[in-house]
Structures are given as structure tokens and as C-alpha cells.
């Protein structure tokens, strides 16, 4: 009786562990593959309604408004003297920030073998690529003569001119291009086995079959193919980490290398990276919550443990961000430059001072209060909300750094508030476009890297030693 009880207890414990941890709750591979395929194909009419609405928003707000702006000049936006940049650059930095989460989660956690990453690396990597697309839109939009933007590329031309490599904007362009290319490749490599899986589960004669066949590059799962793939992924995972760090550092140099009060701060590089991770983590949390609740079978793949782990990361990043914010503020304040002092005062007491306080509440206070609690941070919708607030807070941070800080310069005669014009719609358009791309991707490629999950599940098992049930992991790779 006692032993039965004990067995029951052990059994309960094991069941509990299985329920909690995806790695300990394996399903047959074929079933799991079918679940992923089904999650792509089960599309309700609601999906198409949202998809349609977003398409219209993208067509009107993004491309329509952009065309209007190209035809009429930037005057239709709110940029002015002295806020020459405005929301365009806010959005650029914001989207590049979002894009950082993908690499961070996928590459860094992969390199450090954080097991909870497995089901959602793809979702995060997609954010990188799609976020960068929006960042590209935002930065090209802000150009006065966007039709000449190819002049910024280092290509041979009849003008006999290289781009100016002294300009942080040139660095920026190269960094973002490198990041976009490498992150796209890094997205693609782990996708190959899943594409092959999808190819094998798609009926002949459909366009999807062709799509998967072409993209899967004839992957059959041979030993040699796996070895090559693993090597390539390893190289990319290691290589993309410095690229990621460099990108946002270089973005920060657009500001830090300038002579403006509030901008020429030596700590902007790490400050921007941490800020990017902050918003990126928040965005991943939001995306996971949506995927989990909206896509079929996703409750199996994405569980409380993932939100819990993510929540912990968010808390950590929030603390780091708070540290850098304080550091940046402290040094600028202590510097005593009268224009910087004026600017810091303007941040807090100016007409948009509420934004400064909201930023601190959203980025620091709320994560710190909510994410300490393990139970709370396991709740998808709480994490969604916190992630949303962090993103709003981080958008505010960029708004404060760009248009609000541009308001205050060394010529008080020219100080002027910035009121956004058409760039609001353009910003909404990029958000819609991001979601649209994501929704499209969710119908075409497996959002869950099945082979990675299966690989993890194979390595993990529950073993019962006497009274204790423990998780054992076999060495991978």
C-alpha cells in the first residue's frame, strides 16, 4: 500500500514534469509532424478577415501614404527644424531593436544550449527578418529623395564617388544589410529539415509541394546532410552574435557620433543593445502568446515553462536596461553642459514629460513588479501585456532620444516641438506589414522547428531512481 502510494506519488510527479516540460513529453514523430502541418493548414475565416484588413492597411497606410509623401515631399510629414528626423528614425531604431530578439534567443541560447528555447527559435528568427524589413522601410521613407537611395551603396557609378565612409549612416547601411542577409540565412538553415518534412507531407501537384521542394534543397536527412547543416548552423550561430551586437551599436553611433547635446554619449552602444533586447523579448512574448492561443496544437509546443523562461530573461534585461539608463543619465547630468542640462530638464518637465515617466514605468517598474513572481510570469496573457507595455515604453524611449532630444539644441532661437504628420500612418503601416508577413509565414513555413524539438525530446528522459524521478539528459552533438 505504502509502496503503491509511493508509486502513485512518483507517477504524479512524473506526470507533472511531463505536463510542464515539452522536452519530457514526447509524442511520436509522425504525429508531431502532422500536428505542425495541421497548424499551418487549419485556417479559419477570421484569419482571412484579419489578413484582408491588414492588407488594406498596408496598401493604404504604408504604400499609399509613402507614394503620397514621395510625390509631395516630406512636408506632409511632421518633421521640421530642428526635429529633422522624427518618427521615421524612431521606427527604424524600434524595428531594429525588435529584430534583435530573434538572434539573441536563437543564436545565444543555442550557443549556450538553453533547452527551453527549442520550440520558439523559429518564431523569434522570423521577427528578426521581418523586423529588419520594416526598419528598412522606415529608413528609406525618411529620405528626401528616396529614388536616389542607391547612391548610398558602394557600387561603381558614373559620378565617380564612393559613399562617404566617414558617415555613421554609411556604417549603418552596411551593418543593417549584413544583418539582414546573415539573419535571413540563419533563419533558412534550421528551416531546411522542416521544409523537407513539409515537402514530404504535401500532396503532389500542389504549388505548395513545388514551394517546399525548391526551398528544401533536396534535403533527405542523410548523415552527411545533417553534419553539414549542423556545422553551418554552428558557424552562423557564433558569427551572427557579433553582427547583432555591432548592428545596434552602429545604429547608436548615428546619434552618439553626432555633436548634439543628449546624443554624444559614449555608453549609447551597450545601452541601445540592451534596449533592443528589451523590446525584442517583449515582442517575442507577445508573438508566442498569440501563436499559442490562435494556432492549432500550439498548446502542446508552447507551454508555461517557455513563458516563464522568457519572463526571467525579460526581467534580467529590464534590470540591465535600467542600469544603462541610469548610467547614461548620470554621466550626462554630471557633465554639467548647460545644453544637456536643459535637455534633461526638458525630458522630464517639457510638454511630453509624461512620456519620460511612462517609459520608466513601462520599462522598469512594471516588469520588476510582475516578473518576480514565477506563477505570474508563466501566464501568457500577463507576459503579452507586459511585453506590449515594454514595447510601448521602448518606443517612447526612442521618441525621447530622437524628436524630443532634437527639440533642444545649442540655438534656443530654433527650438520647436515636433508634431507627427503622415509618418503616424506610415508607422502603423509598418506594424501592419510586420503582422501581415508573420501571418503569411505562419501559413507557409512551420513556425515550430519540429526537428529541434524532437532532437531535444530524444535527449531528455525521465528516470526513476528509488523514490526520486529525475530528468536525465544525454550529451548532444
Amino acid at each position, binding site marked *: 500500500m505504502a509502496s503503491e502510494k509511493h508509486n502513485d506519488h512518483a507517477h504524479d510527479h512524473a506526470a507533472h514534469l511531463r505536463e510542464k516540460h515539452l522536452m519530457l513529453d514526447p509524442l511520436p514523430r509522425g504525429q508531431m509532424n502532422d500536428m505542425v502541418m495541421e497548424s499551418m493548414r487549419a485556417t479559419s475565416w477570421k484569419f482571412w478577415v484579419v489578413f484582408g484588413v491588414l492588407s488594406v492597411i498596408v496598401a493604404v497606410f504604408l504604400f499609399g501614404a509613402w507614394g503620397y509623401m514621395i510625390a509631395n515631399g516630406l512636408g506632409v510629414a511632421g518633421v521640421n527644424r530642428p526635429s529633422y528626423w522624427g518618427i521615421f528614425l524612431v521606427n527604424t531604431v524600434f524595428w531594429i531593436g525588435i529584430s534583435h530578439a530573434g538572434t539573441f534567443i536563437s543564436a545565444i541560447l543555442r550557443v549556450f544550449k538553453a533547452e527551453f528555447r527549442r520550440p520558439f527559435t523559429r518564431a523569434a528568427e522570423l521577427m528578426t527578418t521581418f523586423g529588419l524589413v520594416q526598419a528598412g522601410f522606415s529608413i528609406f521613407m525618411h529620405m528626401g529623395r528616396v529614388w536616389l537611395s542607391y547612391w548610398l551603396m558602394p557600387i561603381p557609378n558614373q559620378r565617380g564617388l564612393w559613399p562617404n565612409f566617414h558617415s555613421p549612416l554609411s556604417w549603418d547601411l552596411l551593418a543593417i544589410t549584413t544583418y539582414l542577409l546573415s539573419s535571413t540565412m540563419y533563419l533558412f538553415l534550421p528551416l531546411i529539415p522542416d521544409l523537407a518534412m513539409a515537402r514530404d507531407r504535401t500532396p503532389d501537384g500542389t504549388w505548395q509541394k513545388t514551394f517546399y521542394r525548391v526551398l528544401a534543397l533536396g534535403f533527405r536527412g542523410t548523415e552527411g546532410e545533417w553534419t553539414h547543416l549542423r556545422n553551418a548552423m554552428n558557424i552562423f550561430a557564433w558569427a551572427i552574435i557579433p553582427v547583432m551586437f555591432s548592428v545596434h551599436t552602429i545604429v547608436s553611433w548615428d546619434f552618439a557620433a553626432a555633436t548634439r547635446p543628449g546624443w554624444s554619449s559614449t555608453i549609447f552602444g551597450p545601452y541601445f543593445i540592451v534596449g533592443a533586447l528589451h523590446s525584442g523579448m517583449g515582442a517575442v512574448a507577445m508573438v508566442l502568446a498569440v501563436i499559442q492561443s490562435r494556432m492549432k496544437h500550439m498548446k502542446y509546443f508552447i507551454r508555461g515553462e517557455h513563458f516563464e523562461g522568457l519572463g526571467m530573461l525579460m526581467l534580467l534585461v529590464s534590470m540591465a536596461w535600467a542600469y544603462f539608463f541610469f548610467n547614461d543619465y548620470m554621466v550626462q547630468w554630471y557633465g554639467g553642459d548647460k545644453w544637456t542640462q536643459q535637455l534633461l530638464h526638458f525630458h522630464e518637465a517639457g*510638454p511630453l514629460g509624461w512620456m519620460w515617466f511612462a517609459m520608466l514605468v513601462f520599462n522598469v517598474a512594471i516588469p520588476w513588479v510582475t516578473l518576480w513572481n514565477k506563477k505570474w510570469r508563466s501566464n501568457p496573457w500577463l507576459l503579452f501585456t507586459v511585453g506590449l507595455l515594454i514595447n510601448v515604453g521602448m518606443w517612447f524611449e526612442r521618441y525621447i532620444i530622437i524628436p524630443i532630444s532634437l527639440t533642444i539644441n545649442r540655438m534656443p532661437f530654433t527650438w520647436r516641438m515636433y508634431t507627427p504628420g503622415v509618418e503616424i500612418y506610415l508607422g502603423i503601416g509598418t506594424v501592419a506589414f510586420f503582422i501581415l508577413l508573420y501571418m503569411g509565414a505562419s501559413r507557409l513555413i512551420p513556425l515550430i522547428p519540429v526537428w529541434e524539438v524532437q532532437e531535444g525530446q530524444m535527449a531528455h528522459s525521465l528516470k526513476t531512481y528509488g523514490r526520486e524521478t529525475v530528468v536525465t539528459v544525454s550529451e548532444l552533438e
Partner: protein
Amino acid sequence: MTDNFSRRDFLKLASVGAATTAILTGCGPASRYVTREPYTQMPEYTYNGQSTYYATTCRECAAGCGLVVRTMQGRALKVEGNKNHPANLGKTCVRGQATLHGLYNPDRVQDPAKQSKRGSRDFSNMDWDAAIAVVADALKNTDPAGVAFLMGMAPDHLFDLVSDLAKAVGAPTPIRFGALGMFEARATLGKAVENLFGQAAMPFFDLGKSDLVFSFGANFLETWLAPVAFTRGFANMRRGGGHGRGTLVHFEPRMSQTASKADMWIPITPGTEGLVALAIGRIAAEARGATSAAFENVDVEAIASASGVSAEKLDELGKLFASADAALAIPGGAALAHSNGLETAEAVLALNALVGGLGRAGGVLLAPLAPMQTEFSRPANIAEMADFVEKMKGGKIKTLFVHGVNPVFELPKSLGFEDALKSVGTVISFATFPDETAMQADYVFPDHHGLESWGYQRVAAGSSQSALSGAQPVVSPYYNTRATADVFLAAAASAGGALAQALPFKDEVEFIQSKLVALVGEGDGYFGAPEINTFTAYFQQYGGWWKTVEELSTPSGDVLGKAIKVGEAKFAGEGEFYLHPFVSPVLGEAGANKPWLQEVPDPTTTVMWGSWVEIHPETAHELGVDNDDVVLITSEAGAVEAVVYKYPAIRPDTIAMPFGQGHSAYGRYAEGRGSNPADLFGEQVNDAGDLAFAGMRVKVEKTGKTYPLARLESRMGVYGEALGEEH
């Protein structure tokens, strides 16, 4: 025949033909204009990329500054000052620079036209023959006493022609008027000089050689008399010549642009300028140990309390004035626009006498008359204009010719000029721009723009040399306009009789030459010529004719012999605020239709494209109004709405409004923009007949509306607004 026609003959014949053509066209009116050609089809005589420069005279105000206009292929590109011209020595003001936006203004009157009903703006174009017939008919068939000419302060040659014409017809002498003359208080200044020195003349204030200037309301850096010349004088005073840096003290209830350059700005109670001058005179006299009857009975304490300038300050100012090497006191502008304005002018001028400033370098002298001028003349004052309007109302004027002035806009509304027009049989406007008066006319026969015109202008102020500024077209007329002088000459010719005999000139140029003949052989000229054609050529080339020697004369008269009395200023209307109108330093009286002038910020407020009312921030606070709030200003004569500008440098009991905006016509850039303080003006005049425009009290009420003023300055950066440090 053809066989015998050698190449040599051909060349002979061709050259004779060419010479004949050259002579014929060269002497005819055709050569007087430069033809405008597209850049792609240039005539042979124009070199690609080479500019041609023409000297002419600025018509943006009546000061008569000389211009040199750069043209290329018949287009006027840039206006510069004429370096040799004694009025401006190569410099221009902001309005002069923007005169090209008048020349190429998209809203010019393009053809002679008849308006179906006055004010309807329903114009039907006419041809010039019909237009001349209308003028001829008006001249011939109207009772001469019923013909009236209302002319602007420029150009002078047209005024001379019209004067001759009026004499020949037997019509009353033409009347000249301009809002600038009204705001300058020219009549008061002339009258004061006449009263003190027994001689009507324009005073010459030798700013440049003075080391201390007390300016009583004279906005000499803005629009007053000859701003370019005065600015030069001011700069020389500051550079200091032999004296060291000169000091400027300015008395005005509001810090004007001139006051802003002062070392000391005294925000004086409006209407007490003359009293303060007396107090300064008394203290200065005492400090110099001189007794003068003029200032003997002055009660300094009483003046201190009336003017709001403390007795200590008066003492300091008096001693400062007494101790300067070359002190100069200038009366002008709003200080003279009070019921006691003439007395104020006399009191201030007397200050100069006290410190020996009459006739001394750096003091007050009398400006020379212009060449061909026999006596001092001035535009009509408001008293005379009021008489004129009465005559119109009484139906005594059958035909009114209006040129160079926009009385519907410029005259105080209370005079009722617009109403009075209804009693005039025929109104013929020669406006270049579709101004308010043209909109109330039966016919508009547009004159050329000043840069397309011949003419001359007498330099009345600002030049120590007697000067006649010459004007010539720098480009051919852009539209189907015609010189008003030519229209009158053609009309006179077609009317025949005595009229044709009195004006036997082929065209405007011949008329001008007939006047210039008097200068041929005149000595001390900038150039000389043996006969009129050569003289005219030089006159065009140099942009006028002037003496090379100074001809300033010393005022004389027993100024200090008897006590000078300055009465108390009487204020018309009720209300808690003094109204202090001033001419917009950028727009002047007629600049509102030039887009770039609209975009040039006002020097003191930096407002563009609008007008405003300046209210002290504390007063605004008491009234419960803020920047950009619209207030209703009510005087005894009228009411206007204006946008509040919280101006920190104005007396709390005074509000100030610029004149220049508030047009109801005058082209797309002017129409419906801002408000016109002339709508508030009453009819109170001073003893010289000038309008007491500063002698008014007004009420200010909040309307609840707002209108954002376009400012160049940052309200955040300059006033600390929105930074938690608001003043």
C-alpha cells in the same frame, strides 16, 4: 540692274539700311525698353551669361533711394543700391530688396478694365484707346472744379505732370497722401520747423556725427522719412568717428525696432514726450549753467509723475544730454501723433537749440530742397484729407483720379472715404495692383510697375546734398499696362484745346526732359552736360542728378527766448489701454502683397505672414488671454480683431499694433491676412493737422477664438514656454 549690282554696292546699301534702322529705332520709344526674350532665343546683342545693370529709383516708399537693378535677357534679377546716390549710398532696405516680388507679382492688374459695379470685381478688359478716350472725356466734359487728383507720395514726375494738367484744366491742385506720411507725422515736423525757425523745411538730423541721440518716438531705423539714410547715420554714430561710441536713448511706450537698438529705452507714458523733453531741457540748462526762458517754468516733479519717468532718471538724462559733445534730439512718429504733438515737436527741437545743436555737425540742420524744387512741400495731413472727403461726400467731386495711393486701406476708416466714393461720379484708378481702392473704382487703367517706369523723385530727407533721383525702366512692361503720364498726355492731346497746348509732349520721356532742361548747365552737379539729350542719357546712367556739395542750412530763430508750453495730451475714446499703432518695419504701407516680404520676420516679434497686437504679459494675464488668443479691440471709431503677442517690452497700460496687414483685396498674399489698425483710428488731429493716431484709448476683450501666429523665434527657447520657466 542685277548685273550691275556689285557686292560693294550691296554692302553699302546694307550698311546704310542698317544705320537708318538703327537711327530710327534707336531714337524712337522702342529703344527705351529692353525686350524680354526666352533664354533659348537670345538676340544677337545679348551675350550669354552677361548681365545688364540699370540705375533707377526705388518706389517702395517716397524716400527716393537709388537702385541699380541687375537684369539678364530682359528679366530683372536683383536689386542693389546705387553706390553714388546720396540718399542711400549703395544700400537698400528690406522693402527695396523685395520690390522684384512686386514687379513679378502674380496678382498685378494686367489690362485696362472697366468694373461693371464698384466692388463687384467683375472687370471687363478694354483696349488702351478706349481707356484714353474715357480719361479724355472725363477731363473735357467734367466741370473742372469737379475733377480731383489723388496722388501718392511717389513718383514726383507724375505729380508735376498732373499739377500742370490740373492747372490747365482749371481743376483744384492735386492732393498727395500716403499712410507713411501720416505715421511719420511729416506735417507736424514741417510745421514745428516753420514755427521755430520761421522757415518751412524738412529738418536734417545729423545722426552720423552725433555722439548722443535722444529720439522721441522717431522710428528712424524702421520706416521714418528715410530709413536707409538714418540707419547709415546710426551706424556711423555707433562707430563713433571722433567721439567714441555714440549713445542712443529712445522714448516710446513700446520697444520698437529703433528702441531695441537704444542703450536706454524709456517706456514713457504716451503723450508725455513733450513734457519729458521740457524736463530734460530744464535740467540740461541748469547743468550747463545757462538760463533759458524756454524751460524756465518747467515743473520736473509733476512731469516725472505724469510721464512715469522718475525724477532721478530725468535728472540723469538731463545731465547726460547737457554733457554730450554733440547731442541730438529727434521728434517723430507716434510722439507727435497726439493732440499736443506739435508742441512736443517744438519742445524736442528746442532741446537741440539748448545744446547748440542748431546748424552744428551732429545736430539739427535744414535739408536742402531738391533740384527744380522751389519750396518745401509735404503730403496732405489728415485734416486736409478730411476736408477732401467732405467734398466728396458733398457731391462736389465728379471725377476722381487715384494714383499711387490706396486711401480705402490707408485712411482712418472713420473718415468714411469708401462711403464718400459713392458720391463721386466716376472713379478712375491707375493702380498697378488690385488694391482696395481699385476695387471701388469704375475703371482701372494700370500703370507700369516702378521698375518699368520712367520718372524722377525728389529726395526730401536723409540727403545732405540736393538730389533728384532718376527712374528708368529696367525691363519692358510685362503686362498690357501703360504709364499713367502717357495716358494723361494722350488724353490731353485727344481732348485738344488748351489742354493739348499745355501739355504738348509726345510722351512721358519728353515731359521729363522738359523738366530736366532746367538742370542743364547747373553747377556743382554730379555730372554736367551741354544739352538736354546728353543730360538725359547721363541722368539715366547715373540714376539721377545731385549736387556734389552739401547744402544744409542752419536753422535760425529765437527758439529759447520764450517759454515753451506743452499741453496735456487728450485721449479720444474710453478704455483702459493706450493704443500705440506703428508701421510694420518690414511691410511698410504697401508691402503686404509681396510674398517674400510676408515671409521676412518682423524684427522685434519675428512674426511672419500676419499681424498681431502686442500686450504686456502681465496685462495679458489679467485679461485672461494668452499668446495666439484673438482679442477684440474697440476704440471710439471702430473695432478690430487681432491676435495676441505677449510682448515683454511694452508698457502694461499700452497695446501696440502694426499697420500693413488687414487687406480685403491687394492680391492673394495680402488679402484676408491680419487686421488693419486704421479701422480703429478716429479723427482727432493735432495742431498741425496730423492724425493723433496715438492719442486713443481702447478696450480689449477676449473673443475665445485663437489663431496661431507664425513666428521665427522659438517660444520655448526665447520665453521659456513649456519649460516650466515661463515669464
